[in-house]
């Protein structure tokens, strides 16, 4: 079985920063990512496209920093394993030190010829593990959201920036949060007609959060650059509005938008139908926490952090010794925070493995911890500011699909909650309980898409706090692995 000192899962900004930090301290590092190349979801800017497109704002400070990390990766001793899924994370108890075992599956490079031979599973042991698995976008479901042509804002961003492909000819963006801005600008840069940008919240609600801006001037500057680009491209930026319905047969043909009242409920008599072939929606992010759950780390729910996230100490270590989380996987705070956290986690791993003592760690940290606190504060502000207003869930009708994989509707979910047999005084219904009454969470995505949506529905229907719903129970493989890969693979 292969072994390494530090296994870093995820090669986005946090993972790159963590891997480079640990490698620079002389540790053997293995950097693993499902994607074929490093960069994650953030470092999608493609200098080749970018340089040809004079309408695009320049790369932000965080992007430049991230690209520099990317560039230096090849000069380090970091062992990279791309197109590789980490499907299991477990640990063996030894008196000391505790050893982590990762189950890996490398997607076969050519996927074989006729009837393809899949890759085989392997195992990697590590003294320390840094989870930098990032986050995924969350959406408030509405009728027609499963139509081809409806995608997340991040999906549209990725397609536009990394691949030079526009999601559609006439694009509407709706949701909340800062990602709407760059996505709109980059789509327009590709020549798509960006019909409008609909932000569900209202700027007047943002004012009380002003203080968190302190020390995060680069983020503010970035925002202003995108606003200027929006204005230049004449893209309408409307507030207090969102999409309530997507229409089409085989694909998206039109979107129905509406104004929202002060609680976020759509005002039906303001509905307007717009002809579009791409609709990009997103209401913030939730951490990808499956491996931390599998490893038995403790979790805490905090809407300002993106929902459920691992409990971390000052050194970003979870409740499981030697297991660290850096970046969005530990809470939504943006790329700058992610890169700072990667550094802190890398130092933490080195400490855990005895390569650094506490005094040395503090010295190496320099200003990273302080800067990370400031960046985190900004991120928390954004999460709070741009949280989907509670009334917004009214856009989910009884017929709206909630679990995309298994096509379970909101009506079926609500019926299951009512039938559950849990008088409100006695206790909560959990996501796992819903899973016994319906097929939610039983498809290939294992509840990643519907989980946060169901948790909100449960809280609304039962009146209980969102923590009661819990998270879906995670077991290996955390993402699908072919049987042949398991059958013929290395034994743990």
């Amino acid at each position, binding site marked *: 079985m292969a072994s390494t000192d530090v296994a870093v899962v995820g090669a986005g900004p946090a993972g790159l920063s963590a891997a480079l930090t640990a490698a620079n301290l002389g540790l053997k590092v293995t950097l693993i990512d499902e994607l074929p190349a490093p960069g994650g979801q953030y470092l999608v800017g493609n200098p080749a496209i970018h340089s040809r497109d004079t309408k695009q704002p320049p790369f932000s400070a965080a992007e430049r920093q991230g690209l520099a990390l990317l560039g230096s990766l090849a000069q380090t001793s970091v062992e990279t394993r791309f197109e590789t899924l980490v499907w299991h994370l477990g640990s063996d108890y030894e008196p000391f030190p505790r050893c982590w075992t990762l189950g890996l599956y490398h997607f076969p490079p050519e996927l074989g010829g006729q009837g393809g031979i899949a890759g085989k599973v392997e195992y990697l042991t590590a003294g320390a593990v840094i989870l930098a698995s990032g986050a995924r976008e969350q959406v408030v479901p509405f009728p027609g959201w499963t139509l081809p042509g409806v995608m997340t804002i991040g999906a549209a961003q990725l397609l536009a920036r990394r691949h030079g492909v526009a999601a559609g000819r006439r694009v509407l963006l709706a949701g909340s949060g800062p990602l709407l801005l760059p996505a709109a600008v980059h789509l327009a840069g590709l020549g798509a007609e960006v019909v409008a940008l609909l932000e569900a919240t209202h700027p007047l609600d943002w004012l009380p959060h002003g203080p968190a801006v302190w020390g995060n001037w680069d983020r503010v500057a970035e925002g202003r650059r995108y606003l200027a680009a929006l204005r230049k491209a004449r893209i309408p930026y409307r507030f207090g509005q969102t999409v309530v319905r997507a229409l089409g047969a085989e694909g998206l043909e039109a979107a129905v938008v509406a104004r929202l009242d002060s609680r976020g409920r759509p005002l039906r008599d303001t509905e307007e139908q717009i002809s579009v072939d791409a609709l990009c929606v997103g209401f913030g992010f939730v951490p990808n926490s499956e491996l931390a759950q599998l490893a038995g780390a403790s979790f805490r729910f905090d809407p300002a952090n993106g929902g459920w996230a691992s409990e971390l100490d000052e050194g970003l270590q979870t409740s499981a010794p030697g297991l660290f989380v850096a970046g969005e996987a530990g809470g939504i705070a943006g790329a700058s925070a992610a890169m700072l956290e990667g550094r802190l986690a890398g130092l933490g791993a080195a400490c855990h493995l005895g390569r650094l003592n506490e005094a040395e760690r503090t010295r190496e940290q320099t200003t990273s911890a302080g800067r990370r606190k400031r960046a985190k504060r900004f991120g928390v502000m954004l999460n709070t500011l741009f949280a989907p207003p509670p009334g917004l869930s009214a856009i989910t009708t009884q017929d709206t699909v909630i679990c995309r994989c298994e096509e379970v509707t909101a009506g079926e979910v609500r019926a299951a909650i009512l039938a559950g*047999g*849990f008088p409100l005084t006695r*206790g909560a219904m*959990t996501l796992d309980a819903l899973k016994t009454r319906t097929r939610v969470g039983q498809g290939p995505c294992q509840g990643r898409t519907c989980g946060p949506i169901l948790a909100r529905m449960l809280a609304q229907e039962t009146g209980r706090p969102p923590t009661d719903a819990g998270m879906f129970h995670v077991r290996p*493989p955390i993402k699908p692995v*072919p049987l*042949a890969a398991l059958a013929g693979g290395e*034994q*743990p």
Partner: protein
Amino acid sequence: MSERGDVVIIGGGIVGAACAYYLGGADVPALVLERDYPASGTSRACDGLILYSDKLSEAELALARASATLWADLAASLDADLEYNRRGTVVLYETEEGLAAGRRKAAELQLAGVRAEVLDPAGLRALEPNLAPDLAGGVYYPDEAQVDARAATLAMLDAARAMGAVLRGNSEVTGIRLDASGRVCAVTTRDGDVPCRTVVCAAGVWSNEIVRTAGVELPVKPRKGHILVTARAPGLIAHPLLEGSYAASVKSSAEGVQVALVAEMTASDTLLLGSSREFLGYDRTVSPAVVQAIAARAVRFLPGLAQRSIIRSYAGLRPWSPDHLPLVGPVDSVPGLYLAAGHEGAGIGLAPVTGQILAGWIVRDEAPPLAEAVRPGRFPSLMGER
């Protein structure tokens, strides 16, 4: 037996549900106390096969047949889709030796009235075209059935509630209180005592701790199993499949993990793949090594599965008993205490007959001849120190 009083059923899994259902049918509305949510224990971690071919004794077989008939009735009469079907199962043999043993087993079962048909490779291929071509043969048991365990548990509970039963989730029972005369007088929960005169312990592997508080020592041990779920694979198999060594793995008490293929398709075209058996205490974590071992057996018999993915897995605890028969009925030394536990891997199959026997005991203080084999009193060690 006149002071039956209020009846509490401990456990909202398939056995507790069946007890509540049959008691409800006899006008005895029970209070079901479930520590988490209905079907949250072993009932959410199992396949739903209703088998004869793995039964090891005449007594077991008689129970299985009675229960299978009840399942067919329930599927027709319950107001929910149990995903029940009776296509029969196929037991697969890799070697001539294995097939010969299979033939003998089939003959025994046929003598007891079970339909069975021995298949040569051509016959096997006709029934299951996607099987590996190098098998020695198989045995087809046309009367074996399957049901969705969770759906069935919830359906019986819902039907019981419609007949007056009450279900309380998040209500863990921590013990059983006896009065001065040694009769059941309450169960203890985190929210306080629930007075009752009759208690049915249907808490599966978690029964031991509970009944110990009443001085009863159960010989039930948790026996861990795994199930893998594949991505949708419509049309890959037409019947649930078991490999020949499955029955032996059920019977064996060996330490170490035993893996024997069981493949069941569900109504959503996914396949449930098992099985594994090992004594590992109350551990329910999924072991990658076992996942790989089950995958290997699956690919051996169904090469077409090689390119399919496992999308998830789970592990559960079968309540194993030393003679492979559950304990169903009164505990003579503790008036008011009844057991309905210890079904090992046959909990789904035997749940209805368990519920029926149990209801008979509680309502009429009597049981049919086939219930004799499952009397708790057959274990003298049951009566521990008090």
